[in-house]
């Protein structure tokens, strides 16, 4: 016999009806169990469409009610996932349930210092993310060797944790270091400039690790607000990408804080260099190697180059990874004779400060000439209408590599591609001048603020798409 289902069609719902109707059905079913059979409710299908716009948000989602109202959006609370009486997605466990039943006492297992404690996947310039193994020794060396000496923390420090903890910068210098030194970590789950500024003020934070875009946004917001700017920060570190000097100077002035610029990789458990602020600062540099870190510049054969000569930056230190998980090939390619080959191109000056001039794999070669995308990007950024630019090599009709620029304009600014090309022609050798300019609202960035150039390239495969019949990518080699 065919089963009978009830259909409730509600085309005039409001956003609160979306969870309320099924919750009412579930409540009815529960009550029905204690009532005579005629009160039993059938299995039910509900089809609902809301009028206008709505947001259904869990208790921890930060929705700006004023902006929502301005945009004609109503807000309703998503059903709580907490508590034993809440529906639970099929086939899953709830962390709160399994931990509530578990005892609190647990002594840390003995570990070999070289055992991996963490595997962090890095995007790289091409291909699938690789898993960088970081050991207990790596983290300990970062805390006791680098943080302790370059930006020491104290138990009375409060760090603002705005960068995602899945990134090495926040994980090693934020979470693990704050636990090591007994400092407090103020967690921000969802970044917005206002929330960051308010958190620094409310928690009287003393340390901030952030990326250039966040410093820029904080500064913009501080200019608007003018009052209530916190002056508690004693140490700020910017990393991920270079911070424009003008922003740095104004930020230090407005926030009464110093910003040091850090340099590090996932493969080095975060920071290995710090360009101090004030008199210790060498503009444009990433600073000298931190204590306990050996850094040098080598040529393509791995031979050390004298100061002033450009080559690849290589690093040897207890913070350097033992390699990539399940990937001996990639490991052998970057770790040679105990030195990590960073792929960053630069030089060292006479004072021992390092400068990065490019990425090894990011070079464009046209007609045998090497073109540094960074050089073209920096020139474009000096144009009054340009906020930022990213330059890549693309293959033209003749199969030759040519320069293409992606440009984001400053708010309200307007300029044509032709004008920008003319501007470049005035300042660059002809082979370096972009042949193509594409305007974008924003450049694709990683969580650490790095521009994801691979996403700008033609033929870029969006890994978020799923097609029928497509097999999942292969697992590791092991």
């Amino acid at each position, binding site marked *: 016999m065919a089963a009978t*289902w009830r259909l409730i069609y509600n085309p005039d719902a409001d956003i609160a009806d979306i969870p309320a109707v099924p919750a009412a059905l579930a409540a009815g079913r529960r009550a029905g169990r204690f009532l005579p059979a005629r009160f039993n409710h059938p299995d039910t299908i509900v089809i609902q469409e809301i009028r206008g716009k709505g947001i259904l948000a869990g208790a921890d989602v930060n929705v*700006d009610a004023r902006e929502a109202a301005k945009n004609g959006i109503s807000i309703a609370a998503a059903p709580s996932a907490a508590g034993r009486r809440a*529906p639970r997605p099929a086939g899953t466990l709830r962390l709160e349930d399994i931990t509530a039943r578990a005892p609190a006492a647990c002594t840390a297992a003995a570990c070999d210092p070289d055992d991996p404690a963490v595997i962090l996947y890095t995007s790289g310039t091409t291909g699938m993310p690789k898993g960088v193994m970081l050991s207990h020794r790596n983290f300990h060396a970062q805390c006791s060797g680098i943080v302790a000496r370059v930006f020491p923390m104290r138990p009375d420090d409060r760090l603002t944790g705005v960068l995602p903890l899945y990134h090495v910068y926040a994980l090693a210098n934020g979470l693990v270091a704050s636990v090591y030194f007994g400092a407090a970590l*103020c967690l921000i789950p969802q970044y917005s400039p206002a929330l960051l500024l308010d958190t620094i003020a409310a928690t009287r934070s003393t340390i901030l690790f952030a990326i250039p875009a966040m410093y820029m946004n904080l500064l913009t917001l501080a200019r608007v607000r003018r009052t209530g700017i916190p002056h508690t920060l004693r140490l700020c570190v910017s990393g991920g990408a270079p911070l424009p000097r003008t922003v740095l100077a104004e930020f230090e002035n407005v926030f009464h804080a110093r910003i040091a610029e850090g340099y590090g990789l996932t493969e080095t458990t975060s920071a290995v260099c710090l360009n101090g602020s004030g008199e210790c600062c060498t503009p444009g540099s990433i600073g000298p190697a931190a204590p306990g870190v050996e850094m040098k510049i080598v040529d393509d054969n791995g031979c050390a180059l004298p100061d002033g000569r450009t080559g690849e930056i290589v690093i040897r230190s207890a913070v350097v990874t033992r390699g990539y*998980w399940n990937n001996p090939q990639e490991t052998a390619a970057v770790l040679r004779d105990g030195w990590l080959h960073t792929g960053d191109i630069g030089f060292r000056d006479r004072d021992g400060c390092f400068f990065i001039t490019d990425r090894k794999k990011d070079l464009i070669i046209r007609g045998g000439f090497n073109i540094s995308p960074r050089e073209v990007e920096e020139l474009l950024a000096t144009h009054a209408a340009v906020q930022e630019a990213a330059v890549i090599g693309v293959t033209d009709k003749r199969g030759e590599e040519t320069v293409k620029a992606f440009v984001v304009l400053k708010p309200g600014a307007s300029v044509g591609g032709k004008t920008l090309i003319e501007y470049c022609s005035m300042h660059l050798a002809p082979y370096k001048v972009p042949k193509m300019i594409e305007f974008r609202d924003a450049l694709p960035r990683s969580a650490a603020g790095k521009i994801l150039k691979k996403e700008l390239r033609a033929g870029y495969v969006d*890994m978020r798409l799923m097609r029928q019949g497509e097999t999942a990518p292969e697992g590791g080699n092991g």
Partner: protein
Amino acid sequence: MAEIPSLGAMLEETARKLSRKEALIFDGHTISYRELEEQAGRTANALAALGIQKGDRVAIMLPNIPEFVYTFYGLQKLGAVAVPFNTMYKGREITHILNDSGAKAIVALTGCANLINEIKTDVPGLEHVILTGQRTLAFAQEGATVFVQMVLDEGRFKSADAVFSAIGAVVAAALKNLGVEDAWYKHQGAVRSGGKKIGSILLSTFENLFIVNALVFLDSLDADSFFRAVWVPPELKDKVLEPVTSVREQTGTVVTSEAFRDAFTEEFRRQLDADVVPGSLGAIERFAYRKIRKRPGGK
């Protein structure tokens, strides 16, 4: 040379020396080092009870919330390997990381249940999906979204898998009937067209009931206005949401929720050999509905 402490031992040492000192500050609350140590211990013991051992990899897909820290240090206490990764990763990226690392479990936000369920069949080594947090977020818009929800007796289908398969097939077929020719259902996850998500299906269990929450996109959302209310850095906007498409974008024709309802019920009747009878809330349900709507946040 002094012995090198493990990350788990580092927490124990700080918790011993500074037990009452604040370790974490989150949402106006402070969590002391003693509390952090206890929560990490509970998490370690809970994971151990699930079979997680020293050296095992466990993925963490969480934003900066205390549960990230509890899970991270819980794993460190066990000598297990934490695999934290970008919360904006989607489908194949997550599949790659889980397979490559050989993760036995993943701890993620409740709102990611759909995403993880969908790839679970491609990650045979993943034994446990552990969810936390209240960060569900859904956008609804007149003409653009239609919600299909079901409340049914657990005994109606053989298993959760069977419910997923049945409802997924019905939604995909209904969309095909509406002209989305390449609509297909990825088991336990989303209905897709052109690689993008056009509908999602979430199945929950509650006492002896299955609760289905499906969402289908009939037209494109005015995403900009939603992102003014839920602030997201502009460069990350297209990474926050999965790539989404809609019936109108795929077919060029506007489909109403009424037309969708008819296509859905027709397929439902046909595929499940069911009678579908229009109805409304009964007296007890209406009473419950009013009570629910009166709760804070209910309206």
